[in-house]
């Protein structure tokens, strides 16, 4: 019941005087009410539950986590583990 998923705001419009948005959930489009994230802009990610965006996803925070993980996988590699998967941090992706 508390499932909420991240999607990208691709369009903002008004319906019955409520701020609404068209949200792209990796290819699947759906609309959601944006009244609780009044400052949201097109291109940002929101977390949507039961037709309402309940938060703007903090991409900087997510990126910090990815950076930390890439450091972790680097350590793993140094320790001789085989590490699959691409780097997650932007910095490392650019290097690759």
């Amino acid at each position, binding site marked *: 019941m*508390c*499932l*909420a998923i*991240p999607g990208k705001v691709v369009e903002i419009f008004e319906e019955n005087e409520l701020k609404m948005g068209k949200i792209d959930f990796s290819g699947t489009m759906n609309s959601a*009410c944006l009244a609780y994230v009044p400052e949201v802009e097109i291109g940002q*990610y929101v977390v949507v*539950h*039961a*037709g309402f965006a309940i938060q703007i996803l903090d991409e900087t925070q997510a990126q910090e*986590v990815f950076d930390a993980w890439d450091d972790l996988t680097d350590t793993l590699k140094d320790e001789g583990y085989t590490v699959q998967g691409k780097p997650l941090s932007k910095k490392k992706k650019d290097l690759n």
Partner: protein
Amino acid sequence: MKYLDEFRNPEIAKRILQQIKDTVTRPWVIMEICGGQTHSILKNGLDQLLPKEIELVHGPGCPVCVTPLEMIDQALAIARQPNVIFTSFGDMLRVPGTYDDLFKVKSEGGDVRMVYSPLEALKMARENPDKEVVFFAVGFETTAPGNAMAVHQAAKEGITNFSELVSHVLVPPAMEALLSSPDNRVQAYLAAGHVCAVMGWNEYIPIAEKFKVPIVPTGFEPIDILQGILLTVQQLEEGRYNIENQYTRVVKMDGNLPAQKLINDVFEITDRKWRGIGVIPNSGYKLTDKYKSYDAALKFNVGHIESQESPLCISGIILQGLKKPPQCPAFAKECTPEHPLGATMVSSEGACAAYYRYHK
């Protein structure tokens, strides 16, 4: 999917598991509050991967599971009224009342419709002015902003043929009630990430201090959960009991303030009965006096209803983390997802359904 797939990376999961193994020295009991997390834990077999010292117990965080039987019976009675369109999230349609469920009402000709958002129910009211549209407003704090908005919007537009049957429940009072129980085994909580997205994590500070338990707001993907467990175990081992936010990409300390503002306008705190557990003081929302005319329970007087639980079902004990589903004598025998005896077997977030699906 962006911001989901990254949190399912098996390499990272392995690394965090190793960190957990390196940290733990003693047995600990950790409860994940949210049924969505229970589902993710069992689906990904996380409980099997953790070191044996760590026991995860599954909390009451499934609104479908804890909606009291009397409320389900009341919903059924309202849905049977002529001229009513009864709307609900899909999960609630199969929850057994004393005698039947909303699907049965529908098959007998009742106008029962599943909606994805409460605004859809409001739209039906707008488009069917000669009908009464009722929305079954169940859920935790995560769902409250939407349910509050539908009522607020109805009032603003002067729509009078819309109402909500409200059975909202609140997480922190339940966490406190579990810790206060003499049978309590829980030593730390993974708090429900999306509840915290709305409410923030301020309100957990007094609970953590009073009961000396670490509380970690946690997300829903496998790596979120493993990281939440790691943060919890580090605190337990060091004897700390802080609020440490794992789900930083979604949860802020204050939560969502515009949502809280509207919730406080439309709803007020009330005592609420939890199915299988009993009444927990101050653990629910009801509509404020200002919005009383949108209360379906007042609008439709359905008389006195005798509700009776299945005598076999022990879901209340399971929801308190005192037993696991396979310990129920009816599990996978009289009780299956096709023929559920209790709500914990109906919802995919219910512990019984999750065990049936992934651990049978």
